[in-house]
């Protein structure tokens, strides 16, 4: 419960500031103590894109915690909350809420207005708004809200503010309670906040006893302002007065009354405080929504005749503008604004508020409540705020008017009187409602506020709608309010009655007297007042009267004939200047021919002389016959002349009067004009000054922004440098120390702190305080030396367990003054120890290695013959337990007798000739067995060349020796097997150029081993001449490509017989990956081959037989065709007789010839095809050269067709050159023949696919349809008619056969050139010796 009370009693202080606000804030916050039951929210304008340091800056000054506002936080007492940049802050449910800032250009961020408005609404009386230094007017609107909600507003005094824009704007609203310098504001907080804001506690119990004070105050106010507040609700008055008491810090009500009595300013403040009301655009928008249908109804019913609206108590005008917007919308929007017959009266008693309303300019925050769609058309947004559109403004008249005291406006269609009645006591409420009833036209509407009712005036208004906020005027009672002032002294009923009766009797008597007097003097006359109103009529004035068109009023113009009314007006003016005189004029009667009327006027005053007297005129008419103004001869009669002269004089007088009046008004206009001009000039001057000030302000603002940015950047740099330095110091491994000139340590690395067991906090200890580890020299002299010498001083600190380098360098500032020294300790102790340990490890490792490798060591002192043997050596000798004592001779004794001499010789040779000492020998084990040892050694010689010492190794190679022996046995076995199987093996060392043949290889060659120095060249010569090319190619390929190879070839043995051998070859590669050697076998397969060959021939024959049969049919068809044709023609010629004429005969003969040529072609092609066989020699063929030859051979064809033949680089292949030439000739020939109408283009390309080459011959002809690409390779297949392209249809079958002979394949597909592409695949590894079937 306590908590609750505390929470609700917590004062919320909003502090708004802009330019120059930082200093003011510092001054203010530094004075604040934590004991205040208040929380502070700082709203300081800041550039949205900058990171703000405001919180840090303020926390240095403030004694209470300063934190940044977090969204949704509930502020605590005794804390300062700073709004972060680029956010607006508001209060919602007693929590601070961050919002994105308004996107209006003129709106400062964060918005003080916005915050203050929410603060006022949420916190009410406990809100305090403080405006500090700043330009612009942000906050001025907010203080009004706080004030209206009962809060206190404080403003920094303009003198103390660096920029007084915001303070003075706030002061100008008249809603500021206190004005102080910032520090004073803080000092007064205690008084303002902690004072119980309850008048009952300020004054003695028993409110009634203080009625006198209230009455006194009300009287004071009425004297000062003319407004009587006695009928205002007591509670409202009391609350407002309490606020002022708190604001001025008065101790009691009496004290405050005294203060007010002596201070007109305070009375002004109190007055505006009492009148302040909460107003805003579209306040309680839901209620406006319910009003809208009635507005539309009003517009549709009365829109034509014009609508009048009255907003009493309009304050700063928002409500009036809201209604104007709504009506405007109902009339059809701003576009129709100019023609809308709308008149709005906004009235208030507060002139200051009215001034704001008239200006029509509001801060951005005020527009928050306006529906978005209305802002753009009805407001113009500018730097100075948001101004109501001129058209809208023109619809409203703002004027000072006291609803309680002044007469109401009349013929009003709608009165909006919201949140005004609540301030009045019921009695006054009823009176005001009566007035409004009087002012409203019949059926007019009354719109009241949310918490208001029309109690006591239910007979005057009928509610419409559910909400009972809108009422329609009831027409029951008479319109006139019983009294126009509820405040004046009102006489009792009886008094009124008797007074009126007496007055009326007297008046009636006087009127009768006047009537009889007038009638006697001027029987037909009028009494008219100065304005031309007819007050009384005597006799008959009908000849002069007529009802004029339009509204009927009792004026001359309305009731008299125009000529008379005009004349009488002139007379009135003349008579005014000559009171007491009678003036007259005679004029013709138009209605009655021959009659004249003389109009006389007499001016008299009603009542006594003075202000109350009224000027009245008696106008009398006298009709008489026309006097003959001129006689029959046309001469004017005397009477006529006199009348005319009178008339002329009157006219003159009238003219003179007009002239004078014109002059007067002219002068007035001139004066007014001059006044306006001067005002205008003043305004212009002010404007210029303002512009200049604005520019200055802008430029200074820019400068400040720049400086701020620079500062920001350098702060960041400093920060990062500092951070770097700290992280270096904490992480650098070497101890590092910085001292100043007094040898006090300013900085130390963490390593140094550990080393010297010292911690430097805020204190800067002297160097001598360091606890030096053992072995370190005193540091002070070293530092002093470095600083006084100005040079680097380096000391080495070494001992058995210590190796430290100390470097002390003086450091200088820019002026080259020594400002201190930097010391670095490079500790090498660890490295020293490491080296020692490494040496030990290395020795141990060597021992282990020697033991592990089972290598014995020996050391011979040559001169003494003393010999040292290592453990392993002793183990070999079986002497491990006993040890070996003795010299070289003792060792030699253990060497196998047959090796002993060799051992001794090797030693001598090494000692004397320095030949390398290395030999294998047997040595005797203790158990009598011998082991094979490989002994190596190296002697050292003295200056004379005498050996001094010899050290060596002894490796037990007994097992190796055993393996070698077994290997040699196996080899022998293998050779035997080879001999039996007629398989020989050979080896060719590429690097050495050395060839080794096994005995069986010699045997296969018909030679005895050693009969020939073998070499690859010699080997080739043994092969059949036809096979040599192939053999060479195979060997070369294996050598070059490192691929295993295999072939079968005929071999001429030494005895001349021929053998068929199979050669297989493997490849050895050296460490560099190159082929280092070839090795393989040579097998005599003569016997095997003969059997296999027979079997294959049989199979071939069967296949070829079937093929031949098919071939026979095809052949017979194509061969038979020309033959048949020849026979046919020959028969016709021979037996045709008369049926064949000579021309036909010749034609037939020619055809016979052609067919026989064709037959010849076919036979030739067949021959060529059959000649293709597998036995042609294979050699490396340069395809490029062959291609060119083939193209040349087709020279004439190429020329005829204007063919263009190109080729890329073509490879060298193992093939037959004749075949290749034919292949290319056929393909090129085809390409030209089928290559299209104009200039065939032929291109040959080669592609290496890895295992094979693919040669392409492409053309740009018509190509080969896909379904025919295979059939074109069949015999006698042609795509074209015989007449078109020559050929026997054998070309492509021949090509296919040639390619297949080489183990390749040929096929046809599409070419990139657009025609056909013939592709030939030549495998690199084709087994030429055994071509595919």
């Amino acid at each position: 419960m306590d908590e609750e009370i505390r929470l609700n009693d917590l004062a919320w202080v909003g502090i708004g500031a802009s330019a120059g606000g930082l200093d003011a804030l510092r001054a203010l916050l530094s004075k604040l103590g934590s004991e205040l039951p208040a929380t502070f929210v700082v709203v300081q304008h800041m550039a949205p894109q900058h990171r703000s340091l405001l919180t840090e800056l303020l926390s240095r000054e403030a004694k209470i915690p300063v934190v940044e506002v977090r969204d949704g936080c509930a502020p605590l007492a005794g804390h300062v909350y700073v709004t972060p940049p680029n956010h607006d802050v508001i209060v919602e449910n007693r929590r601070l809420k961050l919002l994105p800032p308004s996107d209006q250009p003129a709106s400062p961020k964060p918005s003080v207005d916005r915050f203050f408005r929410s603060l006022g609404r949420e916190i009410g009386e406990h809100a305090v708004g403080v405006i500090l230094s700043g330009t612009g007017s942000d906050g001025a609107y907010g203080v009004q809200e706080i004030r209206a909600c009962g809060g206190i507003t404080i403003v920094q005094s303009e003198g103390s503010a660096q920029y007084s824009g915001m303070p003075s704007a706030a002061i100008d609203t008249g809603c500021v309670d206190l004005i102080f310098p910032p520090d004073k504001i803080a000092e007064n907080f205690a008084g303002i906040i902690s004072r119980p804001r309850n008048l009952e506690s300020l004054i003695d119990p028993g409110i009634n006893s203080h009625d006198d004070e209230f009455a006194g105050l009300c009287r004071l106010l009425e004297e000062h302002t003319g407004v009587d507040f006695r009928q205002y609700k007591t509670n409202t008055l009391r609350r407002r007065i309490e606020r002022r008491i708190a604001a001025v810090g008065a101790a009691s009500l009496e004290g405050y009354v005294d203060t007010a009595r002596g201070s007109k300013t305070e009375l002004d403040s109190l007055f505006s405080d009492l009148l302040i009301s909460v107003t805003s655009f579209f306040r309680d928008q839901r209620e406006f929504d319910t009003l809208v249908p009635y507005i539309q109804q009003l517009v549709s019913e009365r829109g034509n005749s014009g609508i009048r609206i009255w907003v009493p108590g309009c304050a700063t005008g928002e409500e009036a503008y809201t209604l104007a917007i709504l009506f405007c919308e109902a009339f059809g929007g701003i576009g129709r604004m100019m023609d809308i017959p709308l008149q709005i009266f906004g009235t208030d008693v507060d002139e200051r508020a009215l001034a704001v309303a008239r200006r029509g300019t509001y801060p951005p925050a005020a527009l928050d409540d306006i529906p978005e769609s209305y802002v753009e058309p009805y407001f113009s947004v500018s730097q100075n705020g948001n101004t109501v559109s001129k058209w809208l403004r023109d619809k409203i008249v703002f004027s000072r008017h006291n609803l309680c005291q002044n007469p109401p406006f009349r013929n009003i269609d709608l009165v909006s009187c919201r949140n005004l009645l609540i301030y009045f006591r019921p009695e006054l409420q009823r009176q005001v409602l009566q007035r409004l009833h009087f002012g409203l036209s019949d059926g007019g509407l009354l719109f009241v506020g949310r918490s208001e009712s029309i109690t006591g005036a239910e007979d005057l208004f009928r509610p419409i709608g559910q909400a009972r906020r809108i009422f329609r005027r009831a027409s029951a009672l008479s319109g006139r309010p019983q009294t126009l002032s509820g405040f004046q002294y009102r006489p009792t009923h009886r008094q009124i009655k008797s007074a009126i009766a007496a007055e009326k009797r007297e008046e009636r008597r006087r009127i009768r007297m006047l009537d009889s007097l007038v009638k006697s003097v001027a029987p037909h006359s009028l009494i008219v007042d100065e304005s031309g109103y007819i007050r009384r009529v005597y006799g008959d004035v009908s000849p002069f009267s007529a009802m004029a068109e339009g509204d009927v009023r009792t004026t001359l113009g309305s009731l008299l004939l125009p000529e008379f009314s005009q004349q009488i007006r002139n007379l009135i003016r003349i008579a005014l200047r000559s009171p007491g005189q009678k003036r007259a004029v005679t004029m013709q009667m138009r209605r009655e021919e021959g009659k004249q009327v003389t109009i006389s006027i007499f001016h008299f005053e009603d009542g006594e002389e003075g202000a109350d007297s009224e000027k009245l005129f008696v106008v009398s008419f006298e009709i008489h016959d026309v006097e003959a103004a001129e006689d029959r001869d046309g001469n004017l009669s005397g009477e006529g002349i006199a009348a005319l002269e009178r008339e002329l004089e009157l006219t003159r007088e009238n003219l003179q009067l007009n002239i004078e009046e014109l002059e007067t008004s002219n002068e007035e206009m001139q004066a007014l004009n001059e006044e306006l001009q001067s005002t205008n000039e003043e305004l212009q001057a002010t404007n210029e000054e303002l512009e200049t000030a604005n520019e200055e302000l802008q430029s200074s603002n820019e400068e400040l922004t720049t400086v701020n940015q620079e500062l920001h950047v350098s702060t960041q740099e400093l920060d990062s440098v500092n951070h770097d330095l700290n992280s270096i110091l904490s992480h650098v491994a070497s101890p590092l120390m910085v001292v100043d000139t007094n040898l006090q340590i300013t900085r130390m690395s963490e390593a140094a702190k550990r080393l010297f067991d010292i911690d430097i906090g805020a204190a800067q200890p002297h160097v001598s305080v360091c606890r030096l580890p053992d072995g370190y020299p005193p540091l002070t002299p070293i530092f002093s030396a470095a600083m006084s010498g100005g040079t680097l001083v380096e000391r080495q600190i070494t001992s058995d367990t210590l190796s430290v380098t100390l470097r002390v360098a003086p450091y200088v500032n820019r002026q080259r003054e020594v400002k201190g020294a930097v010391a670095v300790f490079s500790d090498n102790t660890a490295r020293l120890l490491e080296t020692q340990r490494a040496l030990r490890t290395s020795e141990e490792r060597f021992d282990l290695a020697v033991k592990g490798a089972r290598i014995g060591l020996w050391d011979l002192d040559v001169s003494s013959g003393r010999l040292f043997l290592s453990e392993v050596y002793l183990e070999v000798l079986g002497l491990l337990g006993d040890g070996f004592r003795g010299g070289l001779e003792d060792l030699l004794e253990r060497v196998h007798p047959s090796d002993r001499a060799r051992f001794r010789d090797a030693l001598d040779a090494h000692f004397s000739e320095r030949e390398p000492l290395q030999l294998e020998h047997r040595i005797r084990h203790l158990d009598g067995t011998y082991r094979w040892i490989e002994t190596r050694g190296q002697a050292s010689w003295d200056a004379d060349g005498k050996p001094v010492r010899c050290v060596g190794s002894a490796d037990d190679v007994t097992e190796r020796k055993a393996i070698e022996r077994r290997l040699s046995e196996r080899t022998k076995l293998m050779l035997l097997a080879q001999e039996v199987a007629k398989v020989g093996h050979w080896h060719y060392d590429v690097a050495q150029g050395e060839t080794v043949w096994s005995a069986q290889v010699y045997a296969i060659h018909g030679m005895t081993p050693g009969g020939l120095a073998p070499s690859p060249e010699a080997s080739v010569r043994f092969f059949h001449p036809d096979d040599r090319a192939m053999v060479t190619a195979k060997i070369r390929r294996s050598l070059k490509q490192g691929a295993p190879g295999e072939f079968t070839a005929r071999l001429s043995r030494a005895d001349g017989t021929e053998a068929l051998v199979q050669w297989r070859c493997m490849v050895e590669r050296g460490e560099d990956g190159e082929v280092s050697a070839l090795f393989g076998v040579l097998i005599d397969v003569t016997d095997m081959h003969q059997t296999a060959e027979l079997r294959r021939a049989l199979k071939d024959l069967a296949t070829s037989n079937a093929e031949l049969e098919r071939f026979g049919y095809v052949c017979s068809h194509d061969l038979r065709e020309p033959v048949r044709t020849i026979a046919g023609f020959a028969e016709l010629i021979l037996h045709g007789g008369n049926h064949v004429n000579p021309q036909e005969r010749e034609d037939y003969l020619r055809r016979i010839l052609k067919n026989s040529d064709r037959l010849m072609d076919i036979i030739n092609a067949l021959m060529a095809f059959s000649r293709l066989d597998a036995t042609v020699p294979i050699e490396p063929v340069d395809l490029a050269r062959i291609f060119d030859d083939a193209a040349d051979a087709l020279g004439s064809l190429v020329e005829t067709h204007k063919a263009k033949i190109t080729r890329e680089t073509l490879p060298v292949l193992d093939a037959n050159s004749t075949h290749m030439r034919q292949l290319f000739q056929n393909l090129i020939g085809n390409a030209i023949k089928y290559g299209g109408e104009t200039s065939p283009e032929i291109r040959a390309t080669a592609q290496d696919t890895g295992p094979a080459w693919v040669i392409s011959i492409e053309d740009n002809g018509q190509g080969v349809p896909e379904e025919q690409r295979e059939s074109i390779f069949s015999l006698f297949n042609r795509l074209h008619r015989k007449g078109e392209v020559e050929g026997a249809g054998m070309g492509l079958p021949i090509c296919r056969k040639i390619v297949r002979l080489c183990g390749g394949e040929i096929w046809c597909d599409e070419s990139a050139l657009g025609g056909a592409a013939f592709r030939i695949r030549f495998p690199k590894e084709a087994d030429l010796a055994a071509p595919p079937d």
Partner: protein
Amino acid sequence: MQPRPIKIAVIDDNEDEILISRHRFRMSGIEVPLDHHLSLAQLERSVADGRVECPDIVIVDMHLPGTRGTDVLRHLRGATSFKGVRRGICTGSNDPADRADALAAGAEFYLTKPLDRAALELLCTQLGSVALVTEGAETRLRGVPA
């Protein structure tokens, strides 16, 4: 009313053969016109253009450049513009495989070159619906009413 004359179209790449056949017909007094076309495409084009009337019988050579007579037969079997036209092969080949292929491709007759009176008689025998009719010195090929 005599049955109407039969029109024959020959598709053969060898002009000489047709020349000889026509001369032979002339000598034998056979009044059977032979429309010669080098390819199926040429025949179709001519019929479509109206240069040639649609034939009653199409005789196709077996070995045509780039294609085979059997393929032509298959095409004719499916072509609506040649509906009801009798078709078969006349070739110099006596390969039994060719004969089997031709029948499989829908040949209604299989003749061996040369195309002469004997061949025409064989055609009549194989088709059955046509006959060689001798009228005075002239012999014509006419449809036989079913």
